[in-house]
């Protein structure tokens, strides 16, 4: 690597124009501003002016989103992703026989009744009829788990049940079976208000999720709130940004051609922000789930929803 001083020296001591051309040709990229600033005083002013202009532009862009700390969306202005969808996608969600996620719900119903593990027990052997016992359960998750000393999401709870009560191997995260069971359980809460329990045990995790939502991170230096609190009326690459209320998970996303969990969706966004991503099941993601469910408190559950 040639140092900047060396380039300057070469420029100043160039005996002929060709020398200068060859220098700029070979080393211009890593030292763009240095020769320009040193060439002449008026150039220096020009370069300084353009740097100031760029700073001002960045400042102006940033100020539209960061002069005020990101404001929470007032309850009466909250919208589900459903409200941002076109009529065709809404029709798919509204009709269970057109909603592809119904196929997962049916699979989940079969799994609910299937005996598994060394204990040879099905979910139904303990929990009975899901339409009664699971009503409203998904609307309360992530919920505090005393054994783990922290909130767990529904996927984790299902796998804990499998490991402890059925003595079966946990289902792989984002696998078809776990999504099916989750969709079946979540379906029993459709229409019920989202109601994650916030008390002294879960509050620290809620706050951790909140911090993550408002913290700028990644190569793009973005916070979740910059899109989902401040710019949800705008579009990103032609698509509505939306308010990021997790009302319908697990849901069928047309882009995925599959059912996916909230964590899969979060990891999508996090990759887009160019953040070193968190693995599926990471505590950070569960904290963020808890915060998002608290943020969507009172909104009706749509699971399993359809999204573009």
């Amino acid at each position: 690597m040639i140092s900047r001083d060396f380039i300057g020296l070469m420029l100043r001591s160039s005996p002929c124009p060709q020398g200068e051309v060859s220098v700029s040709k070979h080393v211009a990229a890593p030292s763009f501003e240095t020769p320009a600033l040193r060439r002449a005083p008026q150039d220096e002013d020009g370069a300084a002016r353009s740097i100031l202009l760029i700073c001002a532009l960045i400042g102006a862009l940033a100020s539209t989103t960061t002069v005020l700390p990101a404001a929470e969306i007032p309850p009466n202005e909250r919208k589900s992703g459903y409200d941002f969808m076109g009529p065709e996608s809404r029709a798919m969600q509204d009709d269970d026989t057109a909603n592809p996620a119904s196929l997962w719900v049916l699979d989940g119903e079969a799994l609910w009744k299937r005996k598994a593990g060394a204990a040879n027990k099905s979910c139904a052997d303990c929990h009975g009829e899901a339409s009664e016992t699971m009503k409203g359960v998904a609307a309360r998750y992530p919920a505090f788990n005393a054994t783990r000393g922290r909130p767990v999401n529904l996927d984790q709870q299902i796998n804990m049940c499998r490991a402890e009560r059925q003595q079966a191997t946990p289902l792989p995260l984002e696998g078809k079976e776990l999504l099916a069971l989750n969709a079946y359980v979540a379906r029993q809460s459709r229409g019920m208000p989202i109601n994650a329990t916030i008390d002294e045990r879960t509050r620290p995790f809620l706050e951790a999720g909140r911090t993550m939502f408002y913290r700028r991170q990644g190569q793009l230096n973005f916070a979740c709130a910059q899109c989902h609190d401040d710019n949800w009326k705008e579009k990103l690459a032609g698509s509505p940004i939306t308010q990021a209320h997790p009302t319908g998970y697990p849901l069928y996303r047309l882009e995925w051609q599959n059912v996916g969990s909230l964590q899969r969706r979060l990891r999508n966004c996090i990759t887009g922000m160019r953040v070193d991503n968190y693995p599926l099941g990471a505590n950070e993601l569960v904290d963020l789930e808890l915060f998002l469910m608290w943020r969507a408190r009172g909104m009706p559950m749509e699971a399993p929803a359809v999204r573009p």
Partner: protein
Amino acid sequence: MARTLINVPPKAKKGEVIAIKTLISHEMETGYRHDNVGKAIPRDIITQFVCTYNGLEIFRADLFPAIAANPFISFFTIATASGAFEFKWTGDNGFSQTETANITVE
């Protein structure tokens, strides 16, 4: 066996136009994709869907790799007589599935 969902109205008046909706779980693997080591993933799609109404074919569709996973097919017919609709999906690797739904026409 693939999971299916059929929506046929259980009752209709004679001469009424009825909507029929079908959904089937299927990967619809295009054959154009490669796995993470560069190996081509072989095509695996449903190639044909046929619906008969009391033995008479009323709807047929050919499916191609551009059709999304879990194909949803909806169409209309006129309720002529009580009886059964039969739905048959066939595809690659010997895929074949048949479902029926009954209708009462008054």
